[in-house]
């Protein structure tokens, strides 16, 4: 067993994809069957894939594999033992325990008892969906020698999402052009489930290398509009783009209140950066911002006078009151503010 552990560890190190994960944990693509597999992380899609991968690998080796689901939140004493006890025909079994982040009282002692004497032909997969609950379960599972630890953190950076798209196509033995992948992430990148579904659809409905045209045909006109993108367009003075993004954001269900907050935070940053002298990193330190934010804000400041920024803040305070019930139509108030801010920007 110890031998096997060392091998598994070294695989995860050499893969180079474990950055940002807790030490010893691996990504879902490296999930392999083991007496105990612990799947942590909040990204449900990836976790499901990890579990599916473990199941598939185990089934490839043992076609008669029996898969059992156990819900830890409504766990009743003895269930683990029942799953692990030898069956009539002795088929190998794979038990998937979900909800370990909110386990019932009896689960953790049973798990501890089971792990003290694990059954030979059973793969136990424990899924912990993140959060502070079930800490003891995690401790027990992590302390178990030979446990395979899989972590599925959410993909936050665009680069990670691009890599995900690339690997999705690779797995389907297809290719996607880099600009096309970029367009796809821009269009549906905020939700990983949607992104993976979109990849699957493109694989099914197109042939050859997927190009930008293919992505536009299916997902054209869809832009992930967030308050931040609206703010980007506004401080750059791009009137039409700002308005289009704002409409898109509101139409896809974004509340006006956080958009106003983002705009206000942006203007606040610009005023503070505009009022401070010195090297970028010094200013960043003084204001508690990231250095790249200071540089970006300085570029954006070119079109703005201090007076225009001050007037913008006054306008946003008025808008904040209007979107919080002071006015009749929050969206109108917000549009008016966005247009006025774009006009205040000097061309």
């Amino acid at each position, binding site marked *: 067993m110890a031998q096997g552990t060392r091998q598994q560890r070294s695989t995860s190190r050499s893969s180079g994809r474990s950055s940002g994960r807790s030490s010893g944990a691996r990504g879902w693509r490296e999930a392999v069957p083991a007496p105990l597999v612990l799947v942590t992380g909040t990204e449900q899609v990836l976790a499901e894939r990890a579990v599916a991968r473990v199941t598939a690998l185990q089934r490839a080796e043992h076609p008669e594999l029996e898969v059992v689901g156990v819900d830890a939140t409504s766990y009743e004493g003895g269930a683990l033992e029942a799953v692990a006890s030898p069956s009539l025909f002795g088929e190998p079994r794979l038990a998937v325990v979900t909800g370990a982040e909110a386990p019932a009282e009896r689960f953790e002692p049973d798990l501890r008892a089971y792990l003290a004497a694990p059954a030979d032909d059973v793969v136990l997969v424990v899924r912990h969906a993140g959060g502070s609950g079930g800490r003891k379960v995690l401790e027990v599972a992590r302390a178990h020698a030979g446990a395979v630890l899989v972590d599925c953190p959410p993909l936050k950076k665009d680069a990670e999402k691009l890599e995900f798209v690339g690997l999705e196509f690779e797995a389907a033995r297809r290719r996607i052009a880099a600009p096309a992948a970029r367009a796809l992430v821009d269009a549906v990148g905020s939700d990983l489930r949607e992104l993976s579904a979109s990849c699957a659809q493109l694989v099914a409905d197109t042939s050859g290398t997927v190009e930008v045209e293919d992505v536009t045909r299916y997902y054209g006109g869809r832009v992930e509009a967030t308050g931040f993108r609206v703010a980007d367009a506004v401080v750059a003075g791009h009137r039409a783009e700002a308005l289009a993004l704002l409409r898109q954001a509101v139409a896809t269900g974004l509340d006006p209140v956080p958009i106003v*907050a983002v705009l*206000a935070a942006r203007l*606040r940053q610009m*005023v*503070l950066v*505009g*009022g*401070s002298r010195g090297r970028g990193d010094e200013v960043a330190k003084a204001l508690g911002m990231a250095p790249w934010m200071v540089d970006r804000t300085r570029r954006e400041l070119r079109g703005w006078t*201090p*007076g*225009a*920024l*001050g*007037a*913008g*803040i*006054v*306008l*946003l*305070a*008025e808008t*904040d*009151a209007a979107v*919080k*019930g*002071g006015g009749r139509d929050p969206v109108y108030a917000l549009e008016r503010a966005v247009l*006025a*801010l774009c*006009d*205040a920007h000097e061309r």
Partner: protein
Amino acid sequence: MTVWDDLVGQEEAVAVLRRAAALGSGALAHAWLFTGPPGSGRSTAARAFAAALLCDTGTGCGTCHACRTAVQGTHADLRVVATELLTLRIDAVRELVQAAQRRPSTGRWRIILVEDADRMLERTTNVLLKAVEEPPERTVWLLCAPSPEDVLPTIRSRARPVRLRVPPVAAVADLLVRRDGVDPAMAAFAARAAQSHVGLARRLARDEGARTRRREVVRTPLDLSGPTDAVVRAGELVDVASEEASSSTAERDARERAELLRTLGVEPGRAVPPALRSQVRALEEDQKKRATRLRRDVLDRALLDLLSVYRDVLVLQLGADVDLVNASMVEDLRALASRGGPAATLGRMDAIGTARERIQANVNPLLAVEAMCVALLPEPVGAA
């Protein structure tokens, strides 16, 4: 000594209340609405009136058991309702309606005193209507609000009004010297700086930190020269308010939580069982609401101090013959007064008023104060 001693500068109201307290059942109005600016002593007046009604000697002697317990709000027949949250809960008010039906146990009257009648939503107020209109023979309602407009007309028309005025500065200073043993010079300063708000004056007189904070706040107009100053200064104002609010709540929040857990039988350090979590959550929500209210109140107080500066500037600009609130910074005030005309000063006072309204209307406090500071800049910024 009488129960009326702590109520300063309200001779007219006291005379009315004294006469009423001497009346027997049938002649006494069954609902009273105490109105007056913050700090004028609305709840003090209401408590004193309650004490006079419940007093063993019937005069409000201030020495009998009934008087003392009534003033402290612990008398068995007196129910005091106040809230530290943003609004009074509807459940709490429904309970009052039931309590109003009971006969007094030891005293002559059952008295229900609502200190924050203005902090009721409309539907909450409607629960009270029937009970206030026709209470049982021996029940008296005492409601307090800053102004009659703060309660619904339907309540207003059912209650007898008692208007308190802003007490004279000298009377407040006197009270501080007499009751709290404050040095006369300090008492005069505090009473003037607090603009006759009794509670605030007491705090200013006794708390060095409060004086320092006030000094910082009233200097704000002098520090503003451009939008950057406005944003920085606004950030400081809001931070100071949050700090002051959280420093006074953090300890209390933790204690309340520990007490609740003990009542629920959860051992310290152990996780709260799922079945009890909703109770802990309810407490946390209350604490959060209380913190919001406190943060707003502290910030509002700072804005009022700032308003007093522009009031003084306006006094100087118009050459009015009234005392300055911030007499200690008269040179700075003259400099501010020379910067523009009364119209500009009034515009700035409006900006402060707008910020106060916006903060009450749940606008992000930082944004509201930033906008206000921009409006206070010496050079007006162009319209966006």
